[in-house]
């Protein structure tokens, strides 16, 4: 038990180095494309982490996560275009987006989080589908399916500054969520994932926990949506489509559910794989159908990393450690038995 903090601090060092590298990367590479790609990666990493709170920690599959992402994106876009592109308005829009997302999570959660896996997933699919229709139909506000452009706050027109903002958000959210999942509250979420009925009979009001989890996930997704809108300075209904949800889902699963670092890695794998594969298509005609290779990537991921990259690597590591330690452990066990007799 006492070893834990030590390991944590070792891990923290690794994290710090990675963040440091990411912070200087744009200077080293000195390419705005790379900066934008890194920005997108950070935004989707935030989205994927938020999804993991549902899927990985609470065991809830949602097919409607794009709804919250879209709420954030639209709130920011609408407020910036209506009230002017200042940092203050941007900050306010993030807050409004989060509040809206939270309210919607509470309502839909209270209605249906009692439902079992598929059913909840299908319900969220329906609700987010309705949001998509709403965004298309409420044209006075959303300009419909084509969407609209708007001006970002002056500061963020410099992509580098915006990248730093997004990176900071990623780090802060990571730390915050890490905290939450490692807290007593987080332990209860995991218990719900494992056996909800038993959790209840231990005296935990699971519905409350599930709603809070979906509020957290929804709020973080909304933040990701706000950042996404700024990164494009444009919004249209694509932010509410199933594609966004599926992206979040795939990133989480590829990286490893139930580990926060997993979704980040998953986001990286998918964003960069997509970027480079479609780049290959430009240079080599065989890659014209690069999406096939992208699909194969998913298939291989499941076959070689059944628990996601992080999950599988850490499992292999533990197995390896166990094998190494087995001889000694077995003899210890034997001795203990002897003493008992």
């Amino acid at each position, binding site marked *: 038990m006492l070893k834990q903090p030590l390991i944590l601090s070792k891990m923290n060092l690794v994290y710090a180095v990675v963040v440091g590298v990411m912070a200087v990367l744009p200077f080293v590479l000195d*390419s*705005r*494309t790379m900066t*934008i*790609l890194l920005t*997108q990666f950070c935004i989707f990493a935030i989205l994927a982490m938020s999804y993991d709170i549902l899927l990985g920690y609470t065991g809830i599959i949602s097919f409607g996560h794009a709804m919250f992402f879209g709420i954030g994106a639209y709130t920011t876009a609408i407020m910036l275009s209506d009230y002017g592109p200042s940092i203050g308005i941007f900050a306010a829009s993030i807050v409004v987006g989060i509040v809206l997302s939270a309210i919607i999570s509470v309502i839909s959660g209270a209605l249906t989080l009692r439902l079992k896996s598929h059913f909840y997933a299908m319900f969220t699919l329906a609700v987010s589908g309705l949001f998509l229709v709403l965004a*298309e139909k409420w*044209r006075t506000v959303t*300009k*419909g*399916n*084509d*969407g*609209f*452009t708007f*001006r970002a706050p002056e500061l963020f*027109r410099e*992509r580098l500054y915006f990248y730093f903002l997004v990176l900071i958000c990623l780090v802060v959210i990571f730390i915050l969520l890490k905290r939450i999942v490692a807290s007593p509250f987080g332990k209860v979420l995991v218990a719900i994932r494992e056996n909800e009925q038993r959790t209840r009979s231990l005296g935990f009001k699971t519905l409350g926990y599930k709603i809070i989890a979906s509020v957290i996930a929804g709020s973080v997704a909304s933040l990701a949506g706000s950042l*996404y809108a700024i*990164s*494009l*300075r*444009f919004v*249209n209904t*694509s932010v509410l489509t199933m*594609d966004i949800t599926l992206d979040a889902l795939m990133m989480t699963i590829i990286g490893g559910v139930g580990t926060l670092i997993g979704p980040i890695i998953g986001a990286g794998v998918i964003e960069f794989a*997509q*970027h480079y594969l*479609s780049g290959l*298509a*430009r*240079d*080599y*005609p065989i890659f*014209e*159908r*690069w*999406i096939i290779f992208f699909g194969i990537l998913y298939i291989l991921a499941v076959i070689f990393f059944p628990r996601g990259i992080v999950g599988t690597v850490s499992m292999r590591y533990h197995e390896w450690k166990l094998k190494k330690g087995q001889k000694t452990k077995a003899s210890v066990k034997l001795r203990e038995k002897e003493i008992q007799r």
Partner: protein
Amino acid sequence: NSDSTDGDDSSTTNSAKQGESGTTETAASSTPIKVGVLASLTGALESYGKQTKNGFELGLEYATDGTMEVEGRKIEVVWEDTETKPEVAVQKATKLLEDDAVDFLVGSSSSGDTLAVLPLAEEYEKIMIVEPAVADSITGSEFNPYIFRTARNSSQDAYAAAAAIAGEGVKIATFAPDYSFGWDGVSAFKAAAEGLGAEIVLEEYADPAATDFTSNLQKIIDAKPDFLFVVWAGANSPWNQIADLKLQEKGIKISTGAPDIIALQFMEPLVGMEGFSVYHHTLPKNEVNDWLVEEHKARFNGEVPDLFTPGGFTAAVAIVEALKKSGGDADGNTLIPLMEGMSFETPKGTMTFREEDHQALQAMYAIRLEKVAEFDYPVPVLLRELLPEETEPPILN
């Protein structure tokens, strides 16, 4: 591979400085002009993307007489696939503007992608030729001065459609998919048709993904219009059901835009309908188009240019013509005044960038869909060429 530009490492740094040294003519012969083209090369809209691509390449050749040079400067083209995703479009556009340091942007196959890229053109002060995205807002509410559109916009479609069928006392019902594309199309059409004295008796909208349109068609039958004007896009089309429910036998004439060749194949049930066309290679009668059709056939084993091929072609011509005017200077701010009001020859005849919103005014065609011996699909046959002025849309920016 001809899509990409190789060996541009040395030139990148040069052209990056282009912004400052743009007015000094001395560099002109050394540095190439770079054009970045965004198109959907994969996904549902890939056939549009490919049309643009083929057209653009031919257009460059045509406009430079095969030299691929203008005012002594080579023209290089870089292609990027937007995958019909706005965030990818922005990523790719930024790559083009930053890493490739292109002087012009062209694109793209989807209005969403295009809208997302518009602010970048302004930020980098580069001319962007919009082709073939149609949303009115591109040259309307979302307009910025660096945007020039060679594609026709939704309103032009609507005016063409109205010109083809509307008249004093004609009763028209409309049928469109239930989202922006449909609503925009119908409202523009309505304005145009009513302007011509027609009466819109019913506006029906249907879920574009629906499997069954009978309910909507039933209502249209009940409304007993003279014409049914249909705005549609996408593979899941209502044509079969319109035929099955015998609207034409019930005295309701159908009218719609003639789309690309693939989609025309699905319109067998609509043979006889009168509507409009943006382009079919048999429609325009001019040298440029003849050249395009010939060369396209020669180059792409006998295939003829399709709906958006002349668009790509036109975009290339517009760029070359503009550069000729500026003496090879690709600076955005220099070009804007030169391009405003510029007229140029295209496969669809003379086009002119309207000064106010940079929309190219262009010919459209009133047509009838007919079975013609040498084609295995229904072909739009020319009734009348609609002059650019006839389909001039309102200025919305």
